[in-house]
């Protein structure tokens, strides 16, 4: 929009000096308008829930009691802890899967790059609802079909409500597009081919090369990928709800029916926590960078 506004202002510059200044002023006005509109677009949905949770309707004053209720709310600790565990497991699994894959494609199989890219895009094309319906039919059919066999046992274990591993597996798939893109950006600029050859030449085994050279070089990309994955899992509702597991998002929705303010307060808090996490990660990364440059 701003570019468009500048283009319009630029078109005016064919005319003598005075209209140009008018054009610039018009451009400035445009910019402010755009900024205000975009700002409101983001701020109103943020401000509304905060207003909703701090207003004491009875007394007509402000209150923090809905936030104070969160730690003690029934089911909160359990659901949040479970989502956090699912998130961390997903991060570990998706990185263990994608870091070696991307490094392998970069160093040995560059011809497969397009194929891998398309494959990781698939989760964006297939709607999660289609994915989860498929998963659900397998989960309802397989345990009976394989009953008494190790496969059947595994199917039951995957659906353990305390820590549903099936969600980790589905989340890994959903996180692929984001993780691939974050890592790929890092790999392309890192000159990994020479670095890994240097390490191999000095006697390092492949696992050692990955741990001591590749991962540190890709640190920023790995952090980005981890954060995106964690944020995705902490906010994912559809899959968990349809498969009938209680996670942090499904708990928020469930609580919302009876205690709307509490539910919204938790949402606001989770937003703040997510932001804090993002800032923390980028601050840590910046500090380490500064140490290296000082």
């Amino acid at each position, binding site marked *: 929009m701003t570019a468009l506004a500048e283009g319009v202002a630029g078109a005016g510059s064919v005319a003598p000096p005075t209209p140009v200044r008018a054009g610039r002023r018009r451009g400035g006005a445009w910019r402010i308008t755009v900024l205000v509109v975009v700002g409101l677009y983001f701020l109103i949905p943020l401000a509304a829930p905060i207003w909703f949770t701090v207003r004491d309707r009875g007394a007509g004053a402000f209150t923090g009691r809905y936030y104070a209720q969160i730690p003690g709310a029934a089911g909160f600790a359990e659901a949040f802890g479970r989502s956090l565990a699912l998130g961390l497991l997903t991060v570990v699994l998706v990185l263990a899967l994608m870091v070696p894959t991307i490094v392998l494609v970069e160093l040995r199989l560059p011809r497969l790059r397009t194929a891998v890219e398309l494959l990781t895009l698939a989760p964006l094309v297939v709607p999660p609802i289609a994915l989860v319906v498929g998963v659900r039919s397998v989960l309802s059919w397989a345990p009976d079909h394989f009953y008494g066999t190790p496969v059947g046992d595994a199917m039951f274990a995957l659906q353990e409500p305390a820590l549903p591993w099936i969600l980790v597996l589905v989340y890994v798939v959903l996180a692929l597009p984001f993780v691939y893109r974050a890592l790929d950006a890092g790999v392309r600029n890192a000159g990994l081919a020479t670095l890994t050859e*240097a*390490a191999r*030449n*000095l006697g390092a085994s492949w696992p050692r090369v990955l741990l*001591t*050279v590749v991962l540190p070089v890709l*640190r920023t990309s790995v952090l980005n990928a981890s954060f995106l994955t964690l944020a995705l899992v902490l906010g994912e509702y559809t899959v968990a709800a349809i498969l009938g597991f209680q996670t942090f998002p499904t708990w928020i929705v469930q609580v919302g029916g009876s205690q709307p303010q509490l539910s919204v307060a938790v949402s606001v808090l989770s937003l703040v926590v997510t932001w804090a996490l993002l800032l923390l990660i980028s601050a840590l990364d910046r500090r380490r960078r500064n140490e*290296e*440059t000082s």
Partner: protein
Amino acid sequence: MTTAPATGRAQAVSAQPGVAVRLENLTRRFGDVVALDGLDLDIAGGELLALLGPSGCGKTTALRAIAGFERPDAGRVLVGDRDVTSVPPSKRDMGMVFQAYSLFPNMTVADNVAYGLRVRGRGKPERAARATELLELVGLADRAKRYPHQLSGGQQQRVALARALAVAPQVLLLDEPLSALDAQVRVQLREEIRRLQLELGITTVFVTHDQAEALSMADRVGVMRAGRLEQVASPDELYERPATAFVAEFVGTMNRVPATLSGGAVELLGVRRPVAGAAPATGPVVALVRPEALVVTDGGAGRVVTRTFSGAVTRVLVALPDGTEVRVDVASADSAALVPGAAVTVTPVERPVLVAPVEP
């Protein structure tokens, strides 16, 4: 060839001098491209051998086959008596310096140098001592705590050299390590590499496309073309007695002068000279003559086009009556009259002349 005795600073830095390397019938194809075409090469212990050639001639592939990064389709790589053809690069005990900057950006200079020792499970005090020792050897002891991006290109390549030598490898491999540096640093560093190599007596293979680098540093130079060695010889021999027309033209400056073969002699520039090496049939050929093997005299049908002063020697470009241009080196003290436009005659000195077939 001969190994200089380890002296001075380098004596303390243990190395494994004098391991011979042998390439036998090394073949490597990339699709339809033959990068190595049955390459045979013997590198003596402690020798610095340069592989020289145009890009795509297979010199880097040969080096990577020695390092273990390219698995040959056929042939063997022997280090000493050991066949390492199927040994992975991490177990070959070779130090390599790469063309691109290859220092680990997340580690300090000292950690980079000590990396190979850490991989080998050496203790921290030993690693620190060895890193200091090698950084002193390359003159960068005061940069131990810096990170790679805080160093200049030349310093980075010195650290890379220290890192490669820290593990006391059997063989040192240099893959165009100077090509990314500016001219002054390049000359300085190539002298330094040669000095270190002589002090340590380590067998070294150096890949380059820069003939000045190869000729100035190496005990012997192998000139490669299309996956094969055209000639392996000392720099002097390569320059004075090139085995083929390709070597003659690739090494140093060479004039191509139209000539005629008859009766075992070659006629060029109006005089007859004996033919060097095996002569083809009789008839028209191209004579290959160095700028210093031509003499310019005043008066004649030739015209001076340009003169380029470079210290003791001035190079004069002369246009011959048939349109051929030749470069002639003249002592600068005698070149005052050779201004552009001057009429001159060019004659080859009394010496056998190398000839090549006329290209269509």
